């Protein structure tokens, strides 16, 4: 076991991947000489050189498309997109090419590519650097969508993603980079199809992923002090979604709160809620509750940003209201 930050875990996984497989290379804006906008790739240029730690122009569509082409040509690219709002500039390549090529070519082509994207708010970066659009990506068949919420997953998921024959998107909540945790570098690769129950409880199920896991666990602890034992599920993968783990928990607790930093309307929380409705309707004792961001372009001022984002207290209240004796 090694104690490290989420950022260091991601870097350690990158280093291992680059050492283990000559087909792997990293490309993106400022990943080389700058060391990465979030310092994830700091030092890798010196270790692996400019061919494999490849700085790109500010051309999201071209370098994501080039990643697809390089994958078709036998390489295994890891592409970094600085923030999820910038990934909109590459959405054509992602949706129309990366996700479609295997099926559209009748199974002839495959695109083994990992795309790492920083996501989420909490750093006063306003309306063009702060959103949580990973749910949009989870809508697309042909790709995988991962959201590591822990340091161990930051390490393991990148390596597991590189075993996949298809494009894998890893959404890294930017507030997680300084988070510390334990990594077992020799551990077997994690199963990236499964959600994880990170807190056991029988009174309500709190379902979340990525940057909201910390808040949701804090809410779970506060609820426990009030005598309400919440089960907390970290979805880990948004596509495929581990409906089974969610439904099993809800069958036990009969109540569910979905916590998602995205806007409520059309969000991934709506998909989770629908899955519960479709698969565990008769087990529910209350409607599925959701805690999401306010429907506003993310404001800059700290008090406004905080007001827009899901809060621990909101999760606590939402859970409490589902349980009669606590409501």
């Amino acid at each position, binding site marked *: 076991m090694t104690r490290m930050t989420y950022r260091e875990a991601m870097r350690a996984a990158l280093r291992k991947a680059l050492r283990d497989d000559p087909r792997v290379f990293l490309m993106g804006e400022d990943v080389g000489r700058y060391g990465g906008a979030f310092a994830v790739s700091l030092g890798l240029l010196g270790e692996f050189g400019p061919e494999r730690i490849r700085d790109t122009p500010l051309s999201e569509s071209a370098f994501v498309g080039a990643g697809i082409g390089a994958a078709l*040509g*036998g390489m295994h690219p890891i592409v970094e997109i600085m923030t999820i709002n910038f990934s909109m500039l590459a959405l054509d390549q992602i949706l129309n090419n990366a996700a479609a090529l295997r099926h559209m070519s009748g199974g002839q082509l495959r695109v083994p590519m990992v795309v790492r994207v920083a996501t989420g708010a909490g750093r006063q970066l306003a309306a063009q650097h702060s959103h949580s659009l990973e749910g949009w990506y989870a809508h697309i068949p042909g790709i995988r969508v991962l959201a590591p919420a822990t340091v161990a997953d930051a390490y393991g998921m990148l390596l597991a993603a590189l075993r996949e024959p298809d494009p894998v998107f890893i959404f890294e909540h930017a507030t997680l980079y300084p988070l510390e945790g334990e990594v077992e570098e020799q551990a077997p690769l994690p199963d990236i199809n499964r959600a994880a129950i990170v807190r056991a409880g029988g009174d309500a199920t709190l379902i979340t992923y990525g940057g909201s896991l910390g808040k949701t666990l804090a809410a779970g602890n506060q609820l426990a002090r009030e005598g309400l034992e919440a089960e907390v599920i970290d979805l880990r993968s948004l596509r495929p979604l581990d409906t089974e783990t969610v439904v099993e928990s809800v069958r036990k607790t009969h109540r569910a709160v979905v916590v998602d930093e995205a806007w409520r309307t059309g969000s991934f929380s709506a998909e989770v809620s629908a899955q519960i409705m479709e698969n565990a309707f008769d087990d529910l004792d209350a409607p599925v509750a959701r805690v999401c961001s306010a429907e506003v372009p993310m404001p800059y001022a700290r008090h406004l940003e905080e007001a827009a984002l899901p809060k621990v207290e909101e999760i606590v209240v939402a859970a409490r209201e589902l349980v009669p004796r606590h409501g």
Partner: protein
Amino acid sequence: MSTRPLAENLPVTSEHAWFLLREMLRIRRFEEKAAEMYSLGKIHGFLHLYIGEEATGVGSMQTFTPEDSIVTTYREHGHALARGMPARELMAEMFGKVTGCSRGHGGSMHFFDVRRRFFGGYAIVGGGMPIAVGLALADRMQNRPAITACYFGDGAVAEGEFHESLNLAALWKLPIVFLCENNQYAMGTALARHQAQTDISRKAAAYGLDSNAVDGMDVVAAEAAAREAAAFVRSGKGPFLLELRTYRFRAHSMADPDLYRTKEEIAEWRKRDPVVLFENRLREWGILTDEKLAALEAEVEAEIADAVRFAEESPREPVEDLLKDVCGPVPS
């Protein structure tokens, strides 16, 4: 007859000239048959014909080896045939059959053949260009001597991906030939109505690329220019932009009423029909007779008829396989 050049003075050997004519005729007759099959309700969706542009695809394709990669657009029947993809598989694809080159998943706009390194028809204008850059990057990083041919139309130069791709390829000195088949129209919008600079080859200079423009109605000129471009790229000097100036005789697609250009303009370009033009040259050179042309036409007609028969008789993919190949199994 005394003005006829001697065989050794022809710009191409008579055998090669004959081959070029045959390839152009195959495309012309294939496209005519595709239009007919569309009218009969055998082919659906969009069908973009290449008629009028045969010299650009046939001429330029001659310089690319089996190790090179091809990336093209939704108007790609000609490229696919010139690359050696069997007419049968192309017709079957458009019929939506499992024997099609993309198992009926792509249709007219999305032909693929990984064995021939034909990496596809891309139907978002400009969308194939970054992929071509990546294929060239993969060749470079794996020390393969191959190059990539990236075909696109004049409409694509308005897309950001054109500019991003040219810059990235030039910045990294990647082995890629950008081939702009300028047929004068971005769907229905004439070049001068969407570009301030209508000389596409000149756009390359802004990104530090070498470039050239050639008469795309002349198959010999197109081949020579493409060979020169490919030789430049193979020598390691970086990418090259070749503009092939051509014209599509038919509407943009079968759904296009063709209201945005005059009949006179089309008639003017048809005077330079690349197939007729080349037939006439072969006659001037004394290597084409009516009998030989009739024999060639019969041979091509038989190939196309066989393709239609094959497409008709082929099975459709079972619906149970609908979700197969959305994602693949993890390799062991």
